[in-house]
């Protein structure tokens, strides 16, 4: 449990700095530091177990169907990295408190830092590789925020974007590789994958998986040729560089290579890919570092070079090289984080980190200078410091490695890397701290407050202690971490300063002598360098990004140019292509189901429907005609439902049809009454072709299905409708009982649609549109008799009848065709007729119902029915029914589906009425017509009272 807490603490604590910043910068830093300290302390409680060789594990299932579980493990390797991340993290938090200026948003900085810290700890402690990938992406995102922290600097923003693009692309490659790996091993748990070395290496997918995973590792750990983003990320504040780019994030790729070492390493592919990339990176980056004038640029390329060194060691694939790699990870983290903080101090106190403007700081900043000399000497690999030990081990391994049968390549190049390393390390010391004092420093240099130099001092102390007593201070950790990397017995080794006159020692001597000579001849070497080519990675990167943007813009704008017609044509075309592709990919034997015969009575509506649909297409520009045609089509479809044993559908269809036509008529009051001719003949031909092929495909599919037998689920519903649902109309029982939850969702959708309509029209009734429409005159002549007496009288007589029919349809719905949906539509139409006959003003006076409330009440009643079942201890919407005996009525059934159906009814009435009433209200308001308060414009009764005078 506490294992998961170590990962979660930084995430949970990430809100603290954002809150605590109000209490001041000190409180903010203390809060952040305590979070990390607590996580570090929790980690330390596991140290004894891990050093005994145990693997601490904890986990829960998350999405077992996907193989994604929240499982954490802590072994030697995880302990090493988690210790680095949390330990150095703590130092960085202290350092940043004194480094950041008052103007920097410190709360945001610490929040990002903790997010990053949590993600890193997550990577090194995940047991599940899918979980690991999640954390992996989180580090890319949080480091983006950190690198771009000074968002007012364009370099910061560009550097952050570049880092995100490169590591993000690597992350995608990694995901693919991990999925393949998990697929081969049959599990996404690392503990399982690590046991399956033979299986994985024998798989034909081993090489693709390896390349994809290395793609992620190399981008993250800035290996050649993906190294270019790291120097640009140096635009970040120095604490970020010290943390992310020396000790943690760039080591994530290294970590993963170490983690996967037992299953992926040991093959030729691994050796050549990994060790070559590492070797090239080490030499090239060290060479470039020598000529960087920006202190952080120098350290950045030096970091790239050292990462290359570790990568190369893991690439060798031998156990002893892995031990050396693990040891160098510790040493590099300690001296490089110290150096980054040191460079930050120099920058902070002198106002520049340009080597050319520095020099002579030794006596101005003695503490800083001392620490820089120790840490840089360790980086150079000078004896008695920790860098020396792991570099000796590296040279020893390199001396024994032959590359493509050539025994000299690796040792010579490794020595060359060491030469450059000595040269740039001493350049850091000599060109910054030695030489004459200058009088043109941008600021007055002096040693910083303790808060800035103590954190690196601790690391420098570690550099010396490990350098002098390696076995005491690092032996156990190296052993247990290397054990986790190798996954087998760790070779017997002893960390010590003196190994005798080994080849490695001579290589070291050569490196120091040649390196110092290079530095002595620095101006000449530099002139040589300047004469050579300098490929600018950023320009190439920008060119690549620009061409990708251009290509995607061409593609996207070609498909997606803002024209609905084009989108729809593409969508329909794609659907047609997919449909036909599927059709040609299968057999085409005719179906064996018996077909139903047809009589002449069926042929008439059929022909009528085909003809009207065709007519609708031809005459669609005359909008009233087209609307009538739609009405006819709907009518024929409802007749079809009646004939084909679907009375409920027929009732629904016909009432919906009426409501739809009324609605569109109301809209057409405002819209133009005809469409202009604007399609070209070619366009029409294209559309006709699409329509013809699409229609043919859908029709053929329907035919194919209908002429084949099938097994239906419906037997259950037919059997259980009466005994379980208490109704004989199976369709209604399904709606309100078996599939009540679906229906519940659908009435909510209907209610939301009505509210959306209300909002759309209500907005149109105010402001600009309303003003612009004030002088609007209807396009067509308006009837002088707006509320004809015949219609008023008929609809008013019909209203009670229609309502009774509605109630009847509702009540019988459970047993006979009908129910809440249909009753709701019938009642709505009856009410709408009142609006049409007597006008909005009068009808609204009579109907004092809030349709919004009606929709809400309907949904709530339906929900209450469902919840009542839950109160009784049944699942949501379980129905119950019983029979009662009443004196006069006789046997009488009550079912809990009834209130649910009332909810449906109310929602349907409310939604339809809200939409239609709002639309007609708008017509009235915008047309500036007088609001009638009487049922008719020409009221015969009023006329009689007036003594027959014409008004």
């Amino acid at each position, binding site marked *: 449990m506490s294992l998961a807490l170590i990962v979660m603490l930084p995430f949970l604590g990430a809100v603290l700095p954002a809150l605590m910043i109000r209490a001041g910068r000190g409180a903010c830093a203390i809060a952040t530091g305590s979070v990390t300290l607590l996580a570090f302390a929790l980690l330390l409680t596991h140290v004894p177990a891990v050093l005994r060789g145990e693997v601490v594990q904890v986990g829960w299932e998350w999405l077992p169907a996907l193989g994604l579980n929240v499982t954490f493990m802590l072994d030697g390797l995880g302990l090493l990295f988690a210790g680095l991340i949390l330990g150095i993290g703590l130092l960085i938090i202290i350092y940043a408190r004194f480094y950041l200026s008052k103007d920097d948003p410190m709360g945001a900085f610490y929040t990002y830092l903790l997010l990053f810290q949590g993600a890193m700890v997550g990577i090194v402690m995940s047991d599940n590789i899918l979980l690991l990938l999640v954390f992996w992406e989180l580090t890319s995102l949080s480091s983006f925020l950190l690198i771009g922290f000074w968002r007012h600097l364009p370099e910061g923003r560009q550097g952050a974007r570049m880092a995100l693009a490169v590591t993000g692309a690597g992350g995608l490659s990694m995901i693919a590789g991990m999925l393949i790996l998990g697929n081969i091993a049959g599990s996404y748990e690392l503990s399982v994958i690590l046991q399956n070395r033979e299986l994985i290496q024998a798989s034909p997918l081993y090489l693709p998986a390896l390349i994809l995973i290395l793609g992620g590792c190399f981008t993250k750990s800035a290996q050649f040729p993906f190294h270019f983003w790291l120097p640009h990320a140096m635009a970040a504040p120095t604490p970020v560089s010290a943390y992310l780019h020396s000790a943690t994030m760039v080591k994530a790729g290294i970590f993963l290579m170490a983690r996967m070492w037992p299953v992926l390493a040991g093959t030729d592919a691994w050796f050549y890919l990994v060790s070559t990339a590492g070797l090239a990176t080490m030499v090239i980056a060290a060479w470039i570092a020598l000529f960087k004038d920006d202190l952080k640029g120098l350290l950045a390329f030096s970091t790239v070079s050292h990462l290359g060194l570790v990568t190369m060691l893991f690439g060798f694939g031998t156990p002893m090289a892995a031990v050396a790699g693990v040891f160098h990870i510790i040493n590099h983290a300690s001296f490089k984080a110290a150096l980054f903080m040191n460079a930050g101090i120099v920058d902070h106190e002198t106002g520049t980190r340009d080597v050319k403007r520095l020099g002579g700081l030794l006596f101005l900043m003695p503490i800083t200078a001392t620490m820089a000399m120790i840490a840089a000497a360790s980086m150079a690999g000078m004896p008695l410091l920790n860098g020396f030990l792991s570099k000796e081990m590296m040279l020893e391994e390199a001396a024994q490695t032959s590359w493509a049968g050539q025994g000299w390549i690796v040792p010579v190049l490794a020595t060359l890397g060491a030469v450059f390393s000595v040269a740039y390390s001493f350049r850091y010391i000599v060109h910054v701290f030695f030489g004459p004092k200058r009088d043109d420093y941008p600021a007055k240099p002096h040693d910083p407050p303790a808060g800035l130099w103590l954190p690196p001092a601790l690391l420098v102390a570690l550099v010396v202690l490990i350098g002098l007593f390696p076995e005491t201070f690092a032996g156990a950790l190296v052993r247990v971490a290397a054990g986790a990397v190798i996954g087998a017995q760790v070779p017997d080794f002893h960390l010590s300063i003196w190994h005798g006159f080994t080849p490695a020692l001579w290589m070291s001597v050569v490196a120091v002598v040649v390196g110092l000579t290079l530095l002595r001849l620095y101006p000449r070497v530099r002139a040589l360098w300047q004469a050579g080519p300098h490929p600018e990675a950023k320009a190439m990167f920008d060119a690549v990004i620009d061409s990708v943007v251009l290509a995607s813009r061409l593609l996207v704008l070609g498909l997606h140019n803002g024209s609905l017609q084009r989108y729809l044509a593409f969508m329909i075309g794609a659907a047609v292509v997919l449909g036909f592709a599927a059709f040609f990919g299968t057999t085409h034997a005719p179906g064996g189901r018996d077909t139903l015969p047809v009589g002449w009575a069926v042929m008439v509506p059929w022909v009528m429907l085909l003809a009207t649909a065709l007519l609708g297409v031809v005459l669609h520009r005359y909008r009233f005609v087209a609307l009538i045609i739609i009405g006819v*089509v709907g009518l024929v479809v409802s007749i079809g439902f009646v004939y084909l044993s679907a009375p409920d559908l027929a009732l629904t269809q016909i009432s919906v049809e009426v409501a739809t036509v009324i609605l569109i008529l109301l809209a057409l009051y405002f819209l133009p009454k005809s469409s202009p001719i604007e399609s070209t003949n070619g366009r029409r031909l294209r559309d006709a072709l699409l329509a013809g092929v699409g229609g043919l495909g859908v029709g053929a599919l329907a035919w194919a299905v209908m002429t084949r037998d099938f097994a239906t689920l419906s037997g259950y519903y037919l059997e259980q409708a009466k005994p379980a649902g208490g109704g004989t109309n199976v369709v209604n029982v399904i709606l309100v009982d078996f599939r009540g939850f679906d229906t519940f969702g659908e009435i909510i959708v209907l209610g939301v649609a009505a509210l959306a309509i209300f909002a759309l029209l209500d907005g149109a009734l105010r402001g600009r549109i309303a003003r612009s429409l004030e002088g609007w005159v209807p396009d067509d002549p308006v009837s002088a008799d707006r509320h004809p007496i015949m219609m008023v009288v008929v609809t008013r007589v019909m209203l009670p009848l229609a309502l009774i029919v509605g109630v009847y349809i509702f009540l019988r719905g459970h047993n006979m065709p009908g129910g809440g949906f249909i009753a709701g539509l019938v009642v709505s139409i009856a009410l709408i007729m009142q609006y049409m006959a007597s006008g909005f003003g009068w009808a609204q006076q009579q109907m004092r119902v809030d349709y919004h409330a009606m929709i809400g009440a309907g949904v709530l009643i339906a929900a209450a029915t469902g919840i009542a079942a839950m109160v009784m201890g049944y699942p949501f919407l379980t129905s119950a029914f019983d029979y009662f005996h009443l004196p006069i009525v006789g046997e009488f059934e009550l079912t809990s589906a009834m209130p649910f159906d009332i909810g449906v009814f109310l929602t349907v009435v409310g939604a339809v009425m809200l939409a239609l009433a709002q639309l007609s209200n708008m017509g009235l308001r915008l047309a500036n017509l007088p609001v009638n308060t009487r049922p008719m414009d020409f009221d015969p009764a009023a006329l009689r009272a007036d003594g027959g005078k014409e008004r």
Partner: protein
Amino acid sequence: MLSMEFIVASTIAMLTAAGIYLVLRARTFPVVLGLALITYAVNVFLFAMGRLAVNLPPVIRSDAAGYADPLPQALVLTAIVISFGMTAVIVVMALRAWLESGNDHVDIEQPGSEGEQ
């Protein structure tokens, strides 16, 4: 030989084709009508997935010879009501767009590359 299945299938085909053609027009009103036609086609299509039956309504009776498949019917019933809601929203959107812009072209601002006018 003409069969009920053929009649229904050809109806679906015709409604779909007419709907697609209208949906591809340049003005909002035919697009609304086209959607309505496609809605019919889809509803009938879904209904037909339960196969066709004449005089066998799914209402339990002791003397029934059999029943039409009630499940697609229940699904289509709600589909009809929901598609009414959809049509209503689209009509009102078309209306609002017309009121806002004085233009009932489906692309209120027409892209230059599309030589539709």
